[in-house]
């Protein structure tokens, strides 16, 4: 049972998340075409590439600095809103993470919360505004709740992934108020927010990566 997340586990999580995004990148761009500029999928491809590179690099075993560097490189993807936000998320996670080689479930929960706080500082979007926050906020809450109930990382991640998916689904019924989509309002009703779908895919990937890691 995975109780600690180290660089190896992170590599597995990121690899699985990258697979999820690669399978769906055309769909993500298509969702972004409804009212955005249709580039979300290609930005996410570059984001997950950074994630893979960061976890593969030899430079550090320190998870805090690994995540901070990852945040910086994701921001450097130059992909618009989503890479800026996800970069902020990882870098906020890094700031909050203990400077250790591995972290337990509670520490990971604190890191996720730090990432969420960092995003909130620059995003201005609240849950309900039909952005990635609608998936990220419930995912982080679910993870924290599970951690505080002394569940293990695997269980917590499964709950987080499920919450992210539910959050992403809920955006179908919302009207966009943030990002490029805000100017077309009603048009986005019925179609989920691309950034929220990406968050759901990432958390689903994190969970699958952990599962797989256990199996091997």
């Amino acid at each position, binding site marked *: 049972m995975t109780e600690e997340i180290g660089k190896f586990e992170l590599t597995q999580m990121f690899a699985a998340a990258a697979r999820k995004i690669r399978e769906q990148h055309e769909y993500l*761009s298509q969702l972004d*075409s409804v*009212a*955005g*500029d*249709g*580039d979300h999928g*290609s*930005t996410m491809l570059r984001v997950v590439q950074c994630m893979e590179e960061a976890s593969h690099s030899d430079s550090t075993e320190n998870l805090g600095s690994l995540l901070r560097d990852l945040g*910086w490189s*994701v*921001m*450097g*993807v*130059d*992909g*618009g*809103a989503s*890479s*800026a*936000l996800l*970069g*902020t998320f990882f870098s906020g996670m890094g700031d909050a993470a203990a400077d250790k080689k591995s972290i337990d479930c509670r520490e990971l929960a604190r890191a996720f919360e730090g990432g969420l706080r960092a995003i909130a*500082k*620059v*995003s201005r979007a609240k849950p309900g505004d039909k952005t990635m926050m609608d998936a990220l906020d419930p995912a982080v809450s679910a993870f924290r709740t599970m951690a505080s109930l002394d569940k293990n990382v695997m269980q917590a991640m499964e709950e987080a992934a499920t919450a992210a998916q539910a959050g992403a689904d809920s955006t179908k019924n919302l009207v966009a108020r*943030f*990002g*490029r989509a*805000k*100017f*077309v*309002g009603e*048009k986005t009703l019925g179609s989920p927010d691309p950034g929220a779908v990406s968050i759901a895919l990432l958390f689903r990937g994190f969970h699958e990566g952990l599962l797989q890691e256990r199996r091997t």
Partner: protein
Amino acid sequence: MQMKKFINDPHHLLPELLEGLALAFPRQVRLVGTNIVARAVPKAAGKVRLVTLGGSGHEPGLSGFVGEGMLDYSVTGEIFAAPGAPRCIEAIQMAAKDSPGVLLVVLNHAGDVLSANITMQAAKKNNIPVQMVLTRDGISYGQNSDSANDRRGLVGCMAVYKVAGAVAEQGDSLDECLRIAQKMEENTRSLAVALRTATHPSTGHTIFELGDDEMEIGMGQHGEAGTGRMKMKSADETAGIMLDMLLENLGVAAGENLLVVLNGSGATTLMELWIVFRAVSKILKARNINLVRSAVGEFITTQEQAGFQIMIARMDTELVRLWDAPSNAPYFVTR
């Protein structure tokens, strides 16, 4: 179908277009850092620097406005995508050297604002004296009650570059540059209309669809939908509808002085822009509003989209003087 554009690798547009700009205007601009456009001859030490950031695909904007009297640095993103914060910080750090401060001019688009906010956080952490102005000139069709934050950045940024650039060139303080930039920004409104879509040069896809007999008022700088889709109208009628909304939104009264910028989106000809400008000019005259300055051309485009933006700005003596001040930017030369 192959994309009908003269490009090489569609995933390698940014470095090539910037290299071309720098080669074409070696006396005005040069490339520094990572895809950052800077003046060929840096501004004298001790003066405030102007930095902007934003996606590419809008040529000549934004980087075509780097030059004496306008911008010091332009951080250019991929096509229609904000540059990430790391490169913006790189530019701010360069700009801050030998300078009393940096003014960051940012168009109100989600990605740009995010990068700018992250950049501002980092700059403050590093004690760099930097102030930011958000340009929010683009009004929506039919919504006169919009708040400033709901307006997105269109061609209005160019007016801010121009007047703030002129004050900075004079050697004024960062606060004074900010004051002028904000005064210009608050008194500027723009409205866009599109007639035909454009092709995204990296993906090869059209960025929106419009019927054969339709036009759309209120579109964003990247083909973001507006709310004023309607049957195509004549140049005079279109100018009339748009100007009515702009004047009402900015609350312009008879006797006031306006700057008008007519900005072609790409495929709309200068012939058409002149015909539209004629209409604008006649309407203002009929309303006893003074057209004190104007610019007609392609400044901030959306690839080969057909359409244009009308920008109006309330001008006082100070702003007119700064608008008239010399500039040698590649695509905005003042006489």
